[in-house]
């Protein structure tokens, strides 16, 4: 034990954050967290003042996803804490390691309906991996270490630590004891390797189905080597994009509701599906009992609860992908199948020959992808622009494509881009957003202004809530309900009021120069791309349909 002087709980908090290598935190002060903000003045950690607690938590999420480090955010009690909930839910659903610190009213006032008191500890149960409320100063140091350990261990996720104000101010000695680990369960390994090998060697039409778990397990090299060695055709989930090299000749792109036709048909026809860090989400499978209906399943995952949750695995392989995947990397004799999927890939390749002068969003996003520097990090919001980005941008690493996958949270993209840019100051960061989504956290333009964060924003603007409008047209007989946004503000003027350079384009002929101007600009930039309000995302697997029943036009 190191001899140490007396600290406050708040001082101890920053010492422990520094022990875990935290350099940046995102937050917003308030009454019940004032002792922590006071101690911040004496810390080397840099704090970014966001303009809404939801901005802070999404910046922490973007920071974590772009860098692989834990993202940290802070908020005060009551409304400050409840404003974190959506971001915590997003991090929980997409398994992102975030530590959220909330101030709480003093312990003596807890349970008395005090000013700005809410039971955030109770509220957090359904949207965090774990949470703590510290009511004894002697517990604080251990709890903070446990928060980081839990956030990163196994399937990652968000952890909330609620600290009452008197605990923040209480005196404590730092013990520097980090040896006590919380985990007390012995997990039995579940790995049916010999059965999996048997399935693999007998498969004639195997598919590798890659999910977000690959990037989170740092197993990109292993999965690429597996794809290369086996020559197996591969498909990706939204969160898995970038795990497989997009130039791999047997890679068919994203599967599922807005997946490529080749990916969905190949999965439908396969006789062996190897799920790697993927969880058979409903947006992936479509009608579950018709998903890969003739396939045996080998399922690699770190989370026991995902095995057999939505699809029975013939050979479950639980544990670390880095260790397990190479055990199955054999050369396969599947030339006929490879030729068939390559033919489909060729036959159903994206087309960009869109008639007229109006801008075609997929072509813009493809061109951005072609022109952006290597290792650019793209974030998206949620809606049509998100699916077009997933379909048409070429992503070389999952940490370069940050999107709200499971929760589908509008308002994710802008604050996530801020967090990504702070974690990777030398890389280009592009936030692709829509005119609906950007308004959900538009206040974060002020964060960009304050810190001169050089994020590039591509605003795909159809003056509609486009994805909902698309569904109303297709599945609700064209009756449009609350999806018109033709009274949006002037986005260029809005950006300029935050000292962000902005430009609007409307014609195809303007696209290339506009993208280059944006990428060449040193500071933040908003490029407003006006598109036709009737453009739809294709293909589309309608609700309750099998993935081979895609719609390709209205």
């Amino acid at each position, binding site marked *: 034990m190191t001899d140490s002087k007396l600290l406050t709980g708040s001082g101890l908090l920053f010492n422990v954050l520094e022990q875990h290598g935290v350099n940046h935190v995102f937050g917003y002060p308030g009454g019940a967290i004032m002792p922590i903000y006071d101690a911040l003045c004496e810390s080397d950690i840099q704090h970014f003042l966001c303009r809404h607690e939801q901005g802070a938590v999404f910046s922490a999420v973007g920071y974590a996803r772009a860098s692989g480090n834990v993202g940290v955010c802070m908020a005060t009690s009551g409304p400050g804490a409840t404003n974190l909930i959506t971001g915590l839910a997003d991090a929980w659903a997409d398994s992102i390691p975030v530590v959220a610190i909330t101030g709480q009213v003093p312990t003596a006032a807890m349970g008395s309906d005090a000013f700005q008191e809410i039971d955030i500890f109770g509220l957090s149960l359904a949207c965090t991996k774990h949470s703590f409320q510290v009511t004894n100063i002697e517990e604080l140091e251990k709890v903070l270490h446990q928060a980081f350990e839990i956030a990163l261990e196994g399937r990652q996720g968000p952890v909330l630590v609620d600290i009452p104000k008197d605990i923040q101010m209480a005196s404590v000695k730092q013990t520097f004891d980090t040896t006590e680990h919380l985990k007390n369960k012995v997990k039995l390994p579940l790995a049916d390797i010999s059965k999996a090998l048997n399935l693999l060697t007998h498969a004639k039409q195997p598919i590798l189905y890659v999910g977000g778990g690959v990037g989170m397990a740092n197993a990109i090299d292993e999965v690429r080597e597996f794809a290369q060695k086996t020559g197996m055709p591969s498909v990706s989930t939204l969160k898995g994009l970038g795990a497989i090299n997009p130039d791999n000749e047997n890679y068919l792109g994203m599967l599922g509701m807005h997946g490529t036709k080749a990916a969905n048909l190949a999965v439908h026809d396969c006789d062996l599906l190897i799920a790697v860090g993927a969880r058979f989400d409903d947006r992936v499978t479509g009608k579950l009992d018709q998903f890969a209906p003739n396939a045996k399943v080998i399922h690699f995952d770190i989370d026991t609860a995902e095995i*057999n949750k939505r699809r029975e695995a013939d050979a479950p392989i639980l544990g670390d992908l880095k260790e397990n995947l190479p055990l199955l990397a054999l050369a396969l004799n599947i030339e006929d199948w490879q030729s068939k999927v390559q033919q489909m890939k060729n036959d159903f390749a994206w087309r960009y020959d869109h008639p007229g002068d109006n801008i075609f969003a997929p072509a813009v996003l493809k061109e951005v992808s072609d022109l952006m520097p290597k290792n650019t990090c793209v974030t998206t919001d949620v809606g049509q622009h998100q699916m077009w980005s997933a379909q048409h941008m070429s992503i070389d690493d999952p940490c370069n494509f940050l999107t709200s996958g499971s929760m589908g949270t509008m308002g994710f993209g802008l604050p996530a881009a801020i967090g990504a840019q702070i974690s990777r100051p030398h890389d280009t960061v592009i936030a692709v957003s829509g005119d609906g989504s950007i308004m959900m956290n538009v206040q974060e333009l002020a964060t960009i202004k304050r810190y001169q964060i050089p994020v590039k924003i591509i605003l795909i603007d159809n003056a509609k809530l486009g994805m909902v409008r698309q569904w109303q047209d297709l599945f609700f007989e064209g009756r449009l309900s609350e999806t018109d946004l033709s009274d949006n503000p002037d986005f260029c003027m809005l950006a300029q009021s935050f000292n962000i350079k902005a430009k609007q384009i409307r014609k195809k002929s303007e696209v290339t120069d506009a993208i280059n101007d944006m990428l060449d600009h040193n500071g933040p930039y908003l490029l407003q791309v006006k598109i036709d309000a009737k453009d739809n995302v294709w293909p589309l697997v309608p609700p309750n349909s099998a993935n081979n029943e895609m719609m390709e036009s209205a």
Partner: protein
Amino acid sequence: MNNYKLIIMTDDKQVVLERILQVTRYRGFLIDGITAKVNTGNNIATIELFVSSDRSIALLIDQINKLVDIKSVKVDNSAAKRLKAKECSA
């Protein structure tokens, strides 16, 4: 609807019972009964949870097992059978 009795061993930590109840409800299981006792000697709580659902009990066991403070979750099949028999005769 199938009936099950789960025997859950857990560290005696804050809100562990709330966590178990929240997960049980969210994952689609009805709670038919519960008993909980703490061994003050080792701070281990034993919770007997009677649940019913059409879903596989394995889904709930896996989710409860994931909770940080849980030490073990087991199904007591004999109790579940007795419960079912009682329900049929009632």
